C-alpha cells in the first residue's frame, strides 16, 4: 500500500504530480491511500513527477477542493481509468464521472457563494483603510477564489479570513494560516445603510421564505449584516401587504400634467405628423414605426416601393436595407442623386411573421395596400412629381387601384390624368433571382427603366 500525504488540502498541482508518478509506476488505485497534513508519514511515496496537462483537468482540479475525504481516491481512480481507456471520460453516464461532477458542482457553487457573500468591513490602518472579511467556506476554495477578488478590488488592500486559511492583498496576494471571527470587526459603518436598502427593496406582498432559503440557506446568515433584518421583515410582511390591499385610494396629490402641445406643421411635415399616428389598418400594432417617404417636396421624380422591411422598420427610413443598397447602386450607375428624388412606399408599416426569433417579411394584402394608398395619394398631391416609378406590383396597385402584372406593364408609361407612371421591378426581385444570366438581364432592364424615368423627369 502506498500512503501519500499531501501538505495542503487544496493543492491540486501537488496531487497531480504524485498521481503522475504513481501512474508511471503502474500503481493501481486500490493500492494507494491519500491523506493531508501527516507530513511525517511519507512512507512509500513516489518522487513527484513532472507531467503534461490531463484531459478533464478542470473537472478534477475542482473536485479536489471538496471537503470529502474520498476525493483523492476518486480522482486517482478516474486518472487510472483514463490512462487505460482514453474514451472513458467521454461517457457522461460512467458512475465515477457522475460522482466527480457532483463534487465539482458543489465546489463551484461554494466558489460562487464566496464571491457573493463575503462582506468587507473597512478599518483604518497606517496607510488609509483596509477591508477585512470573515468567511466560512464549505470547501477548500479560498486559494482558488483569491484571483477573483484581486481582479475586482485592485485598488483596495484587503484580507479574507477563513477558519483554514487567510488571504491578504497589498498589491501582491499572500496566504497565511486561518483565523477566527474575532479577527474581524463585527460591523461596518455602511452596514446600517445596506440593511436599510435590503429592507426597502423587499416587497412584502411577495413574501416567500422557502425560496429565499433555497438560495440563501440559514448557515450563511450569521456572517451577513442584512440577515439580522430577515425575521422582522418576514413577521411584518403579511400585515403590510394586507394594509396596502385594504387601503382605500386617496385623493390624487396634484392635477394631471397638461397634454403636450399639438404640432402646427403644414405640407409634407404635417402629413408626416398625421401619418405617425395612423391606425387605419392593424399593421401599426406590430411594427416599430411608420416609415414616411423621404425627399424634397418639389422632387420631379417619385419612386414608390412596396413596404418597409426589417431594416427600414428599425431605422425609420425608406429603402435602406439590402434592396435599398441595390437601388442606390442603380442610381449611382445612371448618375441620379438620391437627394433630388422622393422615395416612398405603397404601405407605410412593416408587415412580418415570426419564425423563431426572426421577423420574416410578409407581402401586404390588396386590402392593406388599398387602405394605405390614401397616404400615398396625399404625398403625390404635395410633391406633384413629373413622373412616378412604380417598383413592383404592390406599388402599381397602390397607384392605380387595380392589379396589373409587372411583366406586362414593365417599361410602359401609364397616363392617369394627374400623373404619369412608369413600372419596373422591385429591387428585392433582383435579390431573389438565382440564375446568374437572368439576374444580369433583370439588372440591365432595371437600370434602363430607371434611366428612362430619370431622363423623362428631368426633361
Amino acid at each position, binding site marked *: 500500500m502506498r500512503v501519500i500525504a499531501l501538505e495542503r488540502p487544496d493543492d491540486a498541482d501537488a496531487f497531480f504530480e504524485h498521481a503522475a508518478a504513481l501512474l508511471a509506476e503502474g500503481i493501481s488505485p486500490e493500492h494507494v491511500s491519500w491523506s493531508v497534513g501527516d507530513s511525517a508519514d511519507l512512507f512509500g511515496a513516489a518522487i513527484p513527477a513532472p507531467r503534461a496537462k490531463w484531459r478533464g483537468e478542470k473537472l478534477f482540479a475542482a473536485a479536489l477542493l471538496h471537503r470529502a475525504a474520498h476525493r483523492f481516491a476518486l480522482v486517482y481512480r478516474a486518472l487510472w481509468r483514463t490512462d487505460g481507456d482514453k*474514451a472513458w471520460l467521454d*461517457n*457522461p*453516464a460512467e458512475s465515477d464521472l457522475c460522482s466527480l461532477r457532483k463534487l465539482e458542482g458543489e465546489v463551484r457553487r461554494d466558489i460562487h457563494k464566496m464571491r*457573493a*457573500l*463575503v462582506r*468587507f*468591513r*473597512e478599518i483604518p490602518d497606517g496607510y488609509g483603510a483596509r*477591508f477585512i472579511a470573515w468567511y466560512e467556506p464549505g470547501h477548500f476554495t479560498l486559494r482558488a477564489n483569491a484571483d*477573483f477578488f*484581486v*481582479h*475586482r*478590488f*485592485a*485598488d*483596495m488592500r484587503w484580507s479574507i479570513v477563513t477558519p483554514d486559511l487567510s488571504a491578504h492583498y497589498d498589491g501582491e496576494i499572500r496566504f497565511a494560516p486561518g483565523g477566527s471571527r474575532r479577527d474581524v470587526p463585527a460591523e461596518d459603518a*455602511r*452596514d*446600517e*445603510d445596506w440593511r*436599510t*436598502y435590503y429592507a*426597502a*427593496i*423587499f*416587497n412584502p406582498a*411577495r413574501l*416567500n*421564505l*422557502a*425560496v*429565499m432559503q433555497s*438560495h440563501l440557506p440559514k448557515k450563511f446568515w450569521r456572517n*451577513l449584516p*442584512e440577515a439580522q433584518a*430577515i425575521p422582522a*421583515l418576514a413577521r411584518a*410582511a403579511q400585515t403590510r401587504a394586507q394594509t*396596502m390591499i385594504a*387601503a382605500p*385610494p*386617496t385623493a390624487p*396629490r*396634484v392635477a*394631471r*400634467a397638461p397634454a403636450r402641445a399639438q404640432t402646427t406643421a403644414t405640407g409634407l411635415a404635417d402629413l408626416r405628423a398625421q401619418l*405617425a399616428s395612423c391606425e387605419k389598418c392593424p399593421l401599426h400594432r*406590430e411594427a*416599430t*414605426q*411608420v416609415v414616411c417617404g423621404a425627399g424634397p417636396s418639389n422632387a420631379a421624380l417619385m419612386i414608390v416601393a412596396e413596404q418597409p422591411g426589417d431594416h427600414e422598420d*428599425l*431605422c*425609420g427610413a425608406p429603402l435602406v436595407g439590402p434592396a435599398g443598397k441595390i437601388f442606390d447602386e442603380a442610381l449611382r450607375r445612371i448618375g441620379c442623386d438620391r437627394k433630388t428624388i422622393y422615395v416612398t412606399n405603397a404601405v407605410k408599416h412593416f408587415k412580418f411573421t*415570426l419564425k423563431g*426569433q426572426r*421577423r420574416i417579411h410578409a407581402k401586404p394584402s390588396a386590402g392593406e395596400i388599398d387602405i394605405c394608398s390614401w397616404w400615398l395619394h396625399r404625398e403625390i398631391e404635395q410633391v406633384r412629381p413629373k413622373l412616378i416609378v412604380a417598383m413592383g406590383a404592390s406599388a402599381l396597385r397602390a397607384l392605380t387601384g387595380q392589379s396589373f402584372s409587372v411583366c406586362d406593364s414593365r417599361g410602359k408609361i401609364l397616363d392617369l390624368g394627374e400623373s404619369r407612371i412608369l413600372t419596373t421591378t422591385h429591387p428585392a426581385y433582383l435579390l431573389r433571382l438565382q440564375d446568374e444570366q437572368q439576374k444580369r438581364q433583370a439588372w440591365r432592364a432595371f437600370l434602363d427603366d430607371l434611366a428612362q424615368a430619370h431622363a423623362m423627369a428631368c426633361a
Partner: protein
Amino acid sequence: MRLDLRQKLAILADAAKYDASCASSGGQRRDSLGMGKGVGSVTGAGICHSFTPDGRCVSLLKILLTNYCMYDCAFCVNRVSSNVRRARFTPAEAAQLTVDFYRRNYIEGLFLSSGIIRSPDATMEQLIETARLLREDHAFHGYIHLKTIADADPALISRAGELADRLSVNVELPQEASLKALAPEKRLSTIRKSMATIRGEIDDHAHDKTVRKKRFATGQSTQMIVGADSADDATILRTSAALYGGYRLRRVYYSAFSPIPDASAVLPVRAPPLQREHRLYQADWLLRNYGFDIEELAEATDDGMLDLDLDPKTSWALKNRALFPVDINRAPREMLLRIPGLGVRVADRVIAARRHGALRLDDISRLASSLRKILPFITTPDWSPGSTLDSEGLKQKLRPPPRQLELFSCA
C-alpha cells in the same frame, strides 16, 4: 424636513422595487487590475449577493435617482397623482453610494432609473451624469444598468450605451390599448423606437472589429407588468416574441402586478399573480432556449392561459401525446429537448453517453436529477410507459403535490 441619505435611500429603493430586472450577467468582461486603476470587474456571469425574504435576488443597487414624476401611469407607485413621499439623489450621492456598497461586496453594480422630471431629455442627462461620475471620477468598472427614458433624444441613448453594460426601456403593458388606458403619457411606438435605436447601436458596435472601438452596452431588456390589464398569457408571449425578434432583447422580465402603497382607484389591488408570473418565465425560457415556436406555446395554453399547476413544457407534451414516447437512444436533440423534465444539459449528456452504448433506465437516472416527470414520455430498452401516456389520469398524476412556489433566480 430635510431627508438624510439613509431616508432618501429607503424612499428611492422602495420606489425601484417593482422593476423586476436584476441581472448582472452578459456584460463585457473587464476588471480593475487589467484596467490598471480603480475598482470593479465584470466576469460575464452574474452574481446574486443576497436574497430578500420574497426570494428575489439582490445583485445590483437598484434605485431611482428621483421618484418625482410628471407621468401618471396608474400601475406605478411613483405616478404624479400618488401621495408617496418623494426624494431625490444628486448624481454625486448616487455614485458615491454605489462605490461604497461595492467596496464592501454588497453588490455587483448599479441599476439606475428615474421618474420623469422636467423633460425626458433632462431626466436622461441626470442618469448619464451619474454613470459618467462612476466611470470617470471613481474609475468604477462594475456593472451598470441604465433605464432608458423612452422619449429621450437618440443621441442621449447612445451616450448612455457607452457608459452602461445594459440598457432597458420598459414596454410596461402587453397591448397598446392597455397602455393608452393606464399610462396615458406613454406610447408603444416611442418605446419600440427607442428599442430599435438601442438595437442599432448594439449591432453597430458588435460589428465594429477595430481594436480601438468604443465600448458599448452588450444587451437590452424590458419589463411587462402581468395582471394589471386583461391581456392573456398568449398575448403576452406573442408580444415578447415580437420584441425578441425585432430588437434582440436579452430578456423580457415579467412583473406580477403587486399591491403598492396609495394605489390608484382605477386599478384595485389584490395579491400579485406570482404563479402566473412563474409560468410566463418558463414559457419565455422555452421560446428562447428550447426551440419552441410562439404558436406552439399558444397551443399549450387553455383559452390563452397557461396551466398554473403544470409547467408549459408538460402542458405542451400532454396536448401532443402522439409525438411521444421518445426513444432516448435514437431521438434527435430537438426532440430530446421536448421531453418534460429534461433540460439542455441533460440532453447533451444523453447524446454523448449513448455513443458508448444503449442507455438504460439507471443510466438516465444518473444523468438526470429526477425521473418522475420524464418517465411517461420516454422509452429505453428496459422501459416503456405503455398505456400511461394515453391515460386520462396522466395529467392528474403529473400535477405536483402542493408545494412552495419556486421563483426565477435572475443573475
